[in-house]
């Protein structure tokens, strides 16, 4: 039985850019925000607080949330960035919920935008934003190579193979092929052989097992109390939230000998993430279990993170997450449709905003407004998981169309 909702999303706005239709992060944020305000039926001067994730890759000025409210000419009582990488962005909804529950705000705006591919050479930036500049960057790691450390261990400890990871890419592309803004939509559906024939980016990860920097996106959500949401059209209730952060640099994580969160297993390991603890908090707070979840929007930037996140969220035991994909459960006819916009693997990662893309997709599916495919039965409860950094942080939200 679930507990009472802690907050509600009453307004959602999204915006998209591409190489043919260039928009910068400020423009995308503005467009999404105006959409969210109109959807919520409120004015910008009713927003008490604004939270974003960290600065967009395509506009790296610090204090970006200040820059945004300044640009919008929108004074607020509090604005900030949650810097747990992408997981911080997902956690903005949790902080908004806390402010609202504390009576410190009536309406909170959570937003993010980015358009990396359109403005920066992300490959040249390499892992410099996410790797230790003292002990890792001098060895030239790339982001795929850092994630590949976990893939290699995952293969070693649980006997998975590249063919298993191919199945994750195939499953996500089945959704992505039908989404109008998915970066890989143009390739259509793919098969295992196609994934395994694609070149290695960083072993054992091949190109189709890696996300791509795709276009630009912006998303904005207006959060308020469940009581105020009663007057709203199509509110989405926040039933639970959780988050955890274990490190910034992978080298720090590898040298931790213990962790206060039992769900992360024996240390050191690279096969459990902070998402496991985030999920525990969200389930506890909401009174829900994995059996209550109808749909997932998760952070699969590299194919092995699909099964690892499934396990961390409690949908499979450690080492068996691939079964959720193999059995077709994540598909449009499955009992656990997952990454319904194609996810980070096929929709792409426009940048920091990828976690907001997952939230936008969840709200659209709950409201029956999907831009791509939707399962025949509209989901009632969607779990959104946002990861950030090099396996560094995880946030989980449980969203529902009913109280």
């Amino acid at each position: 039985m679930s507990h009472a909702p802690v907050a509600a999303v009453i307004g959602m706005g999204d915006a998209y850019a591409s190489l043919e239709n260039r928009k910068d992060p400020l423009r995308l944020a503005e467009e999404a925000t105006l959409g969210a305000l109109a959807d919520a039926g409120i004015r910008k001067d009713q927003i008490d607080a604004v939270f974003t994730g960290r600065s967009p890759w395509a506009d790296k000025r610090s204090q970006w949330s200040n820059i945004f409210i300044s640009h919008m000419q929108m004074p607020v009582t509090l604005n900030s960035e949650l810097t747990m990488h992408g997981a911080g962005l997902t956690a903005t909804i949790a902080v908004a919920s806390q402010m609202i529950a504390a009576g410190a705000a009536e309406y909170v705006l959570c937003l993010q935008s980015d358009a990396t591919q359109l403005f920066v050479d992300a490959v040249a930036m390499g892992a410099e934003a996410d790797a230790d500049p003292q002990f890792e960057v001098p060895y030239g790691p790339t982001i795929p190579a850092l994630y590949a450390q976990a893939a290699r261990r995952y293969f070693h400890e649980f006997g998975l193979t590249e063919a298993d990871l191919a199945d994750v890419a195939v499953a996500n592309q089945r959704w992505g092929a039908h989404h109008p803004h998915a970066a890989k939509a143009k390739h259509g559906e793919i098969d295992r052989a196609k994934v395994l024939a694609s070149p290695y980016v960083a072993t054992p990860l091949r190109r189709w097992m890696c996300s791509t920097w795709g276009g630009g996106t912006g998303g904005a959500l207006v959060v308020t109390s469940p009581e105020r949401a009663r007057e709203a059209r199509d509110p989405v209730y926040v039933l639970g939230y959780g988050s955890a952060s274990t490190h910034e640099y992978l080298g720090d994580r590898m040298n931790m000998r213990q962790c206060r969160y039992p769900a992360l297993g024996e240390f050191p390991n690279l096969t459990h993430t902070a998402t496991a603890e985030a999920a525990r908090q969200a389930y506890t707070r909401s009174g829900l279990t994995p059996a209550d979840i109808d749909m997932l929007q998760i952070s699969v930037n590299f194919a092995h993170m699909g099964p690892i996140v499934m396990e961390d969220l409690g949908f499979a035991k450690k080492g068996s997450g691939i079964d959720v994909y193999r059995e077709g459960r994540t598909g449009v006819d499955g009992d656990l449709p997952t990454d319904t916009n194609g996810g980070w693997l096929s929709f792409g990662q426009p940048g920091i905003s990828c976690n907001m893309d997952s939230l936008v997709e969840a709200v659209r599916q709950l409201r029956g407004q999907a831009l791509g495919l939707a399962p025949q039965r509209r989901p009632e409860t969607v779990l959104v998981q946002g990861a950030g950094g090099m396996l560094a942080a995880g946030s989980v939200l449980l969203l529902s169309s009913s109280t």
Partner: protein
Amino acid sequence: MTEAKALNDWPQPYRLMAAEPYWQALSEEQLTFQRCADCARAVWPAHTYCTHCGSAGLSWERSGGHGTVYSYSTILRGPTPVWAGIAPYTVGFVEMDEGYFLFTQIEGDPDDIEIGKEVTVRYVRRGEQKLPVFTMTGNG
């Protein structure tokens, strides 16, 4: 101009105060790490206080330079011209015999590298800096 130069040079470590002894020892081709006098455990990366017990009794010790491969990945596409120039190259974590994990480059044919294989340190100059990298033990 500065940016173009940076992309064509080896990235240099962002040296923090706690690690100065490490970088100085490397210039003399010595690999070092810290050990806690109170809990006796190895501490890495460099700290001022023990990450395990909080003690201020950290001292630098010389590593024997041997360990085993914990994980690794071979990069096919170097992020900048200097890295593209040596690709494919392999980066990974070595579990050092002294009980800490070092992120490093693992040299040799990528097909020969496996989790659990023994590796030994050697030193390479990258720009101003000497860095420890590892080769398969017995191949070097």
